[in-house]
Every structure is written in C-alpha cells, then in structure tokens.
C-alpha cells in the first residue's frame, strides 16, 4: 500500500515538474529550435533584456497582480468579517452569491465583463484589468479567510471587549493576528489568480497595455523564441519564492487550532 502511494506521489510530481524543468533548461539552451545536444548559453536572457514589449508586459502583470492582491484581500477580508461575525439582512443570499464565480468558466465571465465594461463606458486598459482581476479574486479571498475565521472563536473578541477593548481594537489585537496566515494565503491566491489570468486579460487588454500571458500568447502566434522560456523561468522563480515565504510563515495544512 505504502509503495503504491509513494509511486503515485512520485508520478504526480514527475508529471507536474518535468515540463517545467524542461522549459527552464531550454531557456539556457543555445538553439532556438530546442535542438540537442544542450549547449549552455544565456543569450535568451540577453535577448529578453532588449525585448521591451515582453518586459513591459511582465512588469504590468506583476504590478496588476500586486494591486489586485492588496485590494481584493482588503475587500474580501472585510466581507469575511461581516459574513462570519455579523448578522444582517440578505447575508445568506450574499454568501451564496459569492461562490459561483469561482465555478463559472472564465471565458463566460470575461465575455460578460467585456460587454458590461463596453456598455458602461469603463472600456478597456489597466483600470479595466484591475477591476476585472479584483472582482475575480474576491471570492477566493472570502473563501480562504472565511475558512480561517472558523478557527478563531468569537468569544476571544468578547473576552477582549470585557477587558476594555472596543470592537475595533479587539479585532486588530486578537482576531487579525490569528487570521493573519489565512489572510496571507488569501493574498497569495489573489496574486496568483491575477498573474495567471489569461482569458479576461485578453479581453480587457489594449494594444498599448497588456499583461504577460497575453503578450506571450501573441508572441507565440508570431513565432516562438526561447526568450519566453527565460521570462517564464524568472516569473516562476518569483512565484515559488512567494509561496515558500508563505509556507514558512503560515504552515499550510497545519491543523493546530487557534483557540
């Protein structure tokens, strides 16, 4: 049984990481056509440095993802607080409505957004991308932070209030520190959702303002060069670093309760 389990795990890791490893390696291969034998070279990284559109799209992607993470995490956390700790009219409806967007195919959401943004005069471009990404990321944040809330007992805030804390102080001194790993996880989620986002970005980007996935897509259509491997590698390393930092602080899968 254990043997099978181990084999299974190794197979999964292999299927996940082999393509990525190949891609990273090819970024350092001399040949533009992925020919072997492998000859180490940094020429694609040098080429990348002078590929302004790709670099700009990469920077855009990161900036959008960062802003999305900040805004979506703040708004989503606030929504979570309301959903977990307060009672108000229409709460259950809101709770139900927040989740389907996760399951709705992005193509449909994207089309809807494009139509709505066009119709309402919001148009396309950076602001439209931001609005779209934030809207997309909020349900994930509410889900992650809401789950975190379940591990923080409500009577902790009450205890703080009995000791003289206002509700705001109780939230910031007790609930927030305990919720912090969930919030960090949610922010990472929001960041990833935005960074990954292709369909909606494709609809909302303008020729002058694109994100990396959109730029890569149009570059591939013109002809693939290993520069794309290079920037993908850089992006990947960045994401991995972020996730490792998160894992270091939040210990996902840690089941200690916070009572």
């Amino acid at each position, binding site marked *: 049984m254990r043997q099978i389990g181990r084999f299974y795990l190794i197979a999964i890791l292999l299927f996940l990481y082999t393509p990525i490893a190949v891609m990273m390696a090819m970024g350092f291969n001399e040949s533009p056509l992925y020919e072997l034998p492998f000859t180490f070279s940094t020429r694609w990284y040098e080429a990348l440095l002078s590929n302004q559109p790709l670099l700009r799209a990469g920077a855009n992607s990161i900036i959008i993802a960062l802003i999305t993470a900040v805004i979506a995490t703040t708004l989503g956390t606030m929504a979570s607080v309301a959903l977990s700790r307060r009672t108000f009219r229409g709460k259950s409806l809101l709770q139900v409505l927040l989740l389907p967007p996760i399951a709705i195919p992005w193509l449909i959401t994207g089309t809807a957004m494009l139509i709505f943004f066009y119709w309402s005069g919001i148009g396309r471009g950076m602001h439209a991308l931001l609005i779209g990404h934030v809207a997309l990321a909020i349900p994930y944040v509410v889900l992650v932070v809401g789950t975190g809330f379940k591990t923080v*007992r409500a009577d*902790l805030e009450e205890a703080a*209030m009995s*000791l003289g804390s206002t509700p705001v*102080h109780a939230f910031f001194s007790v609930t927030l520190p305990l919720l912090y790993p969930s919030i960090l996880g949610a922010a990472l989620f929001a960041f990833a959702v935005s960074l990954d986002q292709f369909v909606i970005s494709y609809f909302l980007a303008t020729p002058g303002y694109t994100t990396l996935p959109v730029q890569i897509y149009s570059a591939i259509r013109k002809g693939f060069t290993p520069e794309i491997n290079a920037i993908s590698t850089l992006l990947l390393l960045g994401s991995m670093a972020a996730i490792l930092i998160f894992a270091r602080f939040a210990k996902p899968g840690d089941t200690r309760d916070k009572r």
Partner: protein
Amino acid sequence: MTNVKVKSVAKTYGPIPVLTDISTEFPEGSFTSLLGPSGSGKTTLLRIIAGFIKPDEGVIMIGNNDVTNVPVWGRNIGMMFQSYALFPHMTIAQNVAFGLERRGIKGEAAHKEVDRALEMVRLWGFGDRTPKQLSGGQQQRVALARAIVIKPSVLLLDEPLSALDRRLRQEMQVELLRIQRESGLTTIFVTHDQEEALTLSDKVAILDRGRIVQIGDPETVYEKPLTRFAAEFLGDSNFLSGKVENGAVRLSNGTVVRSDSALPGNGADVTLAIRPEKMSLATADSQPNRLSARITTVIYAGPVLSYILETPDGLPLKLFAQNRDGRVLREGETVSLSWSPEHTIAVAN
C-alpha cells in the same frame, strides 16, 4: 467591589420572551449563583449585565451608575468564559496584562500586577508560557487571573468549570471561592449544577422560563422552596396534593397531613413538597405525618440508600435513608413513612 442592581429587565427574541421582569440585587462582595435548566435565560441575563446584550426594557446599575447604555468595554467587568477564551497568540503574562494595558497600566507597574494575579491563582512563574502549554485547569486559572487583575466592579462567570473533569472541577471550586473571598469581588456565577450552586454561593437565584422564581441563601432556597419548580429543580422532592381542611391538608386518599407552612383557606387546593431525606421509616416515636407505601426499587449507594416507593393509590414517593445499621429493606415490602410538619412545605404550582 460594588453592588449590582437589575431593575425590571426584559428581553425577547422575536416572539419568544427570554427574560421577563427580572429585578434583583447582587450585594457588594456577594457570590450569587444563577441556577436554572437549559434555556431558562441564565446566559442572557449574565450577558445583559456584562453589556453584550441590550435589554428591551429595564435598567442595570453597577454601584451608583446606570450602565444600561454603556457598552461592555466601558463597564469594568471581569468575565470568565466556558471555553477559557485565552488569546492563543500571547503568552500567559501578555494575556493577563491585556486588560491592564487597556487601562493605561504598562511596564513595571503592569508587571507587578500580573505577577500578583498569577500568584493568586497559583501560577506564578508560568508567565512566559503560551496557553497551549497549559492544562485545562491551568488555562482556566489564567482566565481567572486575567479577569480579576483589572479589579473589576463585578466578576461574571458563565459555567466556567463545566469543561473540567469532576476532580479538577471540585479543586477549582475551592480555588474560586478562596479567590472570591480574598478579593471581595461581587460575583455572579451561572451554572446548572445544583450542588455547585449550593456549595459556592451566598445566594442562589433560581430561574424558570425567564423569571427568577426564588432568590435567597442556599439553606433557605433548599429548605423552603417557594414553588413546585424550585423544589424539584434544586434537589429532589415528593409532592402531595390535597385540599385544606381545618388548618391541615386532606389528600385524595383521605390521609390528613399537617404542615407548618401558612396554608390558604378551607377548601383551597394545595401542593406540599417533602424532601426525600426528611422522610423516615416509621418507628414508635415517629412524626405525626404518615403514609404507607410499597417499595418498588432499592438503590444501594453505600452510605445512602434510596428507596422508590408507591402508595396504595399509586402516588410515587422517594426516600433517602442513611445506611446506619446496615439493614436494607427489600423490594416489595410495605412500610410506613413518617415526617414532620416542619418539613412539609406548601409550594405554589
């Protein structure tokens, strides 16, 4: 260290009245238990006094201040929760210092107070640990230290010991009483453990469906229950019903029972309560009140014997006897019971 007054407090949730016209006083330095079955409104009353719930009607006074419209954080209360509610991300010392900090007491002064409070609950030297490193009983002591270190006007406890096992619970009862006496804090303690209420309290308030049906010292409440509910909820009781006849009570089977309680006029219906341990097996020098009954069940519990009996007309009775001579009666035997008029209490239905 102040008295607490509750005046005409009422609370409803939707159509359901949870508390109805509660008026009572908790004297300075007293230990009062709120005792009642589940859903009787104990927690609601405690949380209204704490300020977590606003009453629909009525006034809460702490000392000479009307605090009805003061939120929890302005009331200076000490509260202990069933689940301890220690802050898991803080050390024990930080937990205890939390309320002090809110009152602007910091640094060396706070340090001293924290040490004193931890010493009081016998946890001196545990300050640097985290709540997770303590046992349930120890955590509950920290919660107590955290609540009393701020010198609250009143200490409110909602079943704080119910999560502890029996031995630890008894140990904590003793601790709690000692600390309450030492600190002189006006204390209100919610429980549905009647023994706990009797042993700890100066006063016991019995709640039934949102009303305080009786409040008094444990002895009075136990010996002189005012209502059938109080007689039944606190301890065990036998109930006899009949009609008043010439200053005594005639039961439906014709037996006449005397009571020292004030009885209503001739012909009125009345219910009498008699504690099972106040009844004894009749001997030559027995009490004037007598009934004969057949033993249906014998419960042998070592020092105490419980007999469940039935009178010929089908009335169930209970009798607790000290196991003094080692003689245990058998099921099916018919015996004569006797008890004194003093222990025959007329109760409201």
